[in-house]
């Protein structure tokens, strides 16, 4: 058990001891976040502000071509930094950002108490799960591709005997995909996955029946690289 350091305001005057107990109640004020609690909404907002990372503008569904290629950075994840043995009251966050221009993952460490970015590291070949925005982009890339669209429509028809009119009815889930997950099976185009940011999509009909075809999308290049039979 870690003993909390308490600031004690006590003084002696004429051999009478007077202690300020107000200090203690401040420490336990309602908005105090404890070391092991997840980051609060407020904390995440402060981290975003501190990170000074250009957040991707939201893309409307009607926008044209180059929406598929991302020239910016995308915040992938902000989570509480776990540091065993950290001083009591430490609140830090790990910020994972993907730089699509250089295909690097940027991992930053932010201190919420001091409002400082303590460190920032760039690495390649390391990936995190997709964000909702990336999932939407991946889906867009797939259905913007005429060949892919046709194949998936055929698959939809095979499963449901219906014509796919609105892709919005499809339930889509996606994993981040790295080439070394699938040795001997990745084609040339997919080999970059890991360095590039790629997604493996799983599509389901409205009744939740899985498509037996799973496209791999290179989000960095904005193309479908491969289709895995499911």
């Amino acid at each position, binding site marked *: 058990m870690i003993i909390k350091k308490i600031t004690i305001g006590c003084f002696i005057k004429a051999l009478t001891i007077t202690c300020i107990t107000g200090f203690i109640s401040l420490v336990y004020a309602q908005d105090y976040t404890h070391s092991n609690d997840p980051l609060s909404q407020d904390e995440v907002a402060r981290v975003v502000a501190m990170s000074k990372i250009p957040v991707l503008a939201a893309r409307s569904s009607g926008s044209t071509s180059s929406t598929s290629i991302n020239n910016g950075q995308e915040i992938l994840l902000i989570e509480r930094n776990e540091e065993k043995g950290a001083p009591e009251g430490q609140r830090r966050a790990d910020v994972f950002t993907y730089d699509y221009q250089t295909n690097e993952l940027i991992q930053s460490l932010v201190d919420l108490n001091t409002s400082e970015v303590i460190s920032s590291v760039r690495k390649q070949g390391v990936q995190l799960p997709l964000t909702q925005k990336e999932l939407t982009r991946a889906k867009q890339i797939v259905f913007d591709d005429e060949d892919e669209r046709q194949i998936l429509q055929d698959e939809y028809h095979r499963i449901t005997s219906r014509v796919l009119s609105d892709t919005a009815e499809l339930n889509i889930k996606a994993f981040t995909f790295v080439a070394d997950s699938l*040795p*001997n099976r990745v084609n040339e185009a997919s080999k970059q996955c890991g360095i590039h940011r790629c997604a493996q999509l799983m599509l389901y009909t409205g*009744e*939740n029946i899985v498509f037996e075809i799973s496209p791999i999308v290179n989000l960095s290049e904005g193309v479908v690289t491969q289709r895995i039979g499911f």
Partner: protein
Amino acid sequence: MLAANTSQARPNNATCPSGNTISETFSSGAEWDMCWEVRDEEGVVLSDVHYKAAGKPRRRVLGEASLSQIYTEYDDGSASQFLVTDFGLGGSRLQTLNADMCEGGQLRSDDGRNVLCEITSANGYIYRYRDNERRQGSKLELFSASNINFREFIIRWSFLENGTIEAGVGLSGKFTKTTSDSSAGWTVTAQNKIATSFTDHYFWRLDFDIASDNGNDIVEQIMSVPSSDRLTKTRQSQTISTELSASFDPDGKKFWRILDQSETNTSNQAISYEMVLLNYAQQNKGNSSYPWLKSDVFITQYNACERFAVRNPASACGENVSEFVNGENTNATDIVVWYRLAHHTLPRDEDFSPAPVQWSNFILLPRDWTSSNTL
């Protein structure tokens, strides 16, 4: 050493002694029913175990199922024991159960004593799928307890709503044996005595009698062989035509299923039950060279006098499971599978006394018993 009442195993198609049927129908319409009896040696023996999947025909799974021997070896080399035949799980060693032990359930009696507890209880998720479809399951549980020289063995059967059977032994009671050999035990209690460590080999006798004809069962051995680069596996199935002693093979994922030669599900697939044997880390081959400790599973043709896995009265049959395996046909006949589950105990302070129950279980799972999930 007990003189067995009869050296014979339960004859096929025997009738159930009056008052000894158990049956449970679940809210889904799935149903289990069976017969039970008490024998001096094996204790509670189940027979004519039938499963009816919801909306499907009622079919027999097991003709008889019992714990046919417990062989205890002590790590310090002191004399081993055959608990079923030297002492017996039945008779005066079969414990009288009371209502507290069977809370929420029903006590069943034999010869004027409550010896079996029957409880139907909730079992957590059966499944959850699609967006929000889900079902909580139920199971029928039976248990009895037998005390042999202060160690108490709880024999428990669980029958799940979806056709799964889980069987096991819970070891409790008091560990009274001590030794002066510190490498063959553990220093326990305030007295710092060395409690001897030991292995119990539980030999289960499973007389599968799938569906209406008990004489046309087939054993299939299934393996999934890894490729040399270990990226893929290839399934290999073969019919076991001759009696077989076999061992675990995690690398090949070897398992066995017992299927019916003629009866099928509505998709024309052979109905079967498979053995899911996951207990591996303690599956030692015994402290001595006895052949009946060297294998894990023995697949044999039914033989009325093959009743005890070891110390079987050898008049017309072998003395033990490795002798039962002697070249007889096992293709489309009456099959009995013997399964040896080894469990090692190194006592600890918490076991004194009595020891909290430690379970050793295995699963029998339907495979293609129905053409789809019926729940």
